[in-house]
């Protein structure tokens, strides 16, 4: 079944990305280039999240309006976090 192969492929990618995130720390990048390592790790997390949402939660095959619904929550949470943190910089 093609869809099952796709699910397996995504699982492998997710597993690998999680390992890479830990390796970034084990390799000492957080000491030598903290913010670059920070960005890389967060981007990997974001990609993993999008993969899970798009394929395991089937957002890719749902009407776009469902994605907008979730994006609404995401924008609200990001606005709160970003603006609050900026307010004390």
């Amino acid at each position, binding site marked *: 079944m093609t869809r099952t192969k796709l699910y397996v492929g995504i699982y492998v990618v997710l597993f690998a990305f999680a390992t890479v995130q830990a390796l970034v720390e084990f390799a000492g990048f957080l000491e030598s280039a903290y913010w670059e390592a920070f960005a890389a790790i967060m981007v990997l*997390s974001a990609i993993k999240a999008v993969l899970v949402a798009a394929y395991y939660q089937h957002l890719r095959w749902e009407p776009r309006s469902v994605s907008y619904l979730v994006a609404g929550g995401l924008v609200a949470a990001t606005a709160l976090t970003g603006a609050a943190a900026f307010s004390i910089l």
Partner: protein
Amino acid sequence: MSSHEHGLPPKSSISRWFLTTNHKDVGILYIVTALFFLVFGGVLALLFRIELWEPGAQVLSELSYNQSVSAHGLLMVFWFISPFAFGFANYVVPLQMGAEDLAFPRLNALSYWLYLFSGLLFGVSFFQGSTFAGGWTMYAPLNVPAYIPDGALGATTAVLALVMFVASVTVSSVNFLTTMYRMRAEGLRMRDLPIFSVSILLTVWMMLFAFAALLAALMILSADHIIGTKYFVYQITQSGAVTRTVGNEAASLLWAHLFWFFGHPEVYIVFFPALGVMAETFQTFAGRRLVGRKWFILSMVLVALQSFMVWMHHMFLTNINLTIKTVFMATTIGISLPFDLMMFSLIYTLIKGKVRFKTPFLFTLGSVILFIVGGITGVFLGAVVLDYQFRGTYWVVAHFHYVMVGGATALFGGLYYWYPKMTGKMYDEFLGKVNFAMYFVGFNLLYFPMFVAWETPRRVFEYEAGLTVWHQIATIGGLLLGASFLVMFYNLFVSLWRGADAGDTPWEYATSAEWAVSSPPPMDNFPGLPSYRDGSLSFLSESAVAARLRGDGTASTDGGDPTADGGVATGTALDTATETHLETEDVEHADHASIWPFAVGLGAFLTMLGLSGVQQGTIVGTEYAALLGVGGVVTFGSLVAMTREPFHAPEAALAERFPYADVEKLKLGMWVFLASDVVLFGAFIGSHAFIRVAHGWREWHNLIPAEHVTMPGLINTYLLLTSSFLVVLAMVAAKKGSRRGTVLSLVGTLALGIGFLVNKALEWQHLFHVHSEAFPQGWDLSTNVASSTFYLTTGLHGAHVAVGLVICAYMTIRAWNGAYQGDPDAIEYFGLYWHFVDIVWLFLFPLFYIL
């Protein structure tokens, strides 16, 4: 028992009100309960208004005064205004949109019971020493036990009551959104919804996101009370070989951000239903369609969006930076513009129409006048420089009462407007007008002097002697305002017996669908399936629906005159229900009775009361332990019973479902819930990030022991990712009809989830007992802000995993017995939740284990 009541006892029977899940009954329950809390909060207000007759505390003790002021604010904002509006929403919205009930009737009843019991829990807090006394805004650090006199028992209960209230709101938001997107009558486009329903739709959207942020704030505050985390404490003293104090610079600002991110949308959550009532009644009593209806709706949409971009104007006097203050001043001034447009639209509707001064209209007209005063005086507070002077004074008190109570004024108009529909009887018009006169004079006598005496400090019983006369006028106004409600209650109560029959509609020019059916409407609401496809409301017979489903557009219809509020509906994409049962067949089987929502509410009440007896990790009495145990059993047992109970809530065979036509209602409900959960976790993660930024992002590591390493987090990431994958396989197996594959995959998910929790427990146990120079007493929840954010955020996630495992265990047993084969929907919906929990962990892992 009437055969028309679908298994429910008659309305004269008390048991009906415990069993009912029907939206009209639940609406009445909301309205009556909200009026009870109005009296509760109103009596408290009269108490402190009497205290303010002269400066100083002569009548109430200092703490009693503070309790009265705080409880008054909390009761009115949370337990009166919004639930009062949602009484109307429950009753009227399904009728206006042509639905038989809400999408999830039992969840609707559950929302009500959680609301009622949360209010009762708040009432109990008065008897536990003292209730919360730090003001309705509950600012930190006065909201944590260290700063609460006489022990924090009652204050903890008040916080838990709010948690329970927010749970009710969240359930309600999910239900209303699912209903309004899935159950509109055929031909009723979103833009055609009557204006009151539009206002409720936007209100519910704001509720979904704003209350999730409040829930995060309240859960964190509860944790500070109950398990001893240190989010809102400024100085954390670590005892041990070397006692040291660690600062928590963000304590107060964090609360302010979380609270006002909710708090400002809350103003519009309270006010929008009032706007809907204003527009609805202005149309009816002016006999004219709302002028600029499209622009009115667009303005409401704009305000709903902007409401999330103005919260920091409540924080102009804190040490947030000037740049952000300037930005929020601009957004705040900007939000007044759509309101201007709405006010002009309402006024112009009157000018273009022929006004009839009936009681509902008098109240809504009064509301517009009061809101204009409230709005203009609020613009002053939106300017940073002026706010420096006005903040914490009676100017603010006067302003927001003109807005909030001004909004409630329209809702009282709504009560008179829909009373004939709900009861079938007319109220006494003369007494209604007397009520309005007393109300309006009393209101202005009460609140306008506060503008004059604006230099009075807010929430303080001392004020300059020269302002005494203004306070005495205000107290007289308060008593008159209170007396006006006696007239209202008398009028409405007596009219139940003596009132003239109202007929289908007592209001000429009322056009929305609730006026097209009898008063009160029958249990099924409509004599057939409502449809607007032909441009006006008609009711399709069973054969007509069958013909429509066959694609025969010439089916005959029955009666009905009113058109949708938004005008003539034209043909749009027509969606049929996933399960194409005919509405008319299903009505025979639609259920309206369940005791379990009440039982869950009662269980939650007992659990929360028991939980209030846990202070900083120590239980203060065996009675609280007993309450906790009994409450937990009742809640869990009732939830299981509710799950097992057969309950049929059919969807209509024909309905407008844009833009969620292809998303089954349970799936849509799950997605809406998850969207709110995104904000809940977002606020938790945001709180962690905020505290860390305040402390110094990279200095944060000094607060964490070297024993806190990456590996347990990485292992848990692997476990959770694999479990997510297995849920997907369970769905695939169920789709293929492989019972063995389904069971094995679910068992695997269960095992990995348990492994996740065990690994976490071992890790926590290890960290609790580290012995290093920096952390000689271990690293537990109370050690510092880093430990507090780590345990609480990952703990919340762990709680989500635990809930998921309970569901997974239940599904595994069902799969073992042969369920889901060829019908994997339930597994897919569980998967949506489980994958979401997985996604959250994908961010918690780097934030708490790597960075």
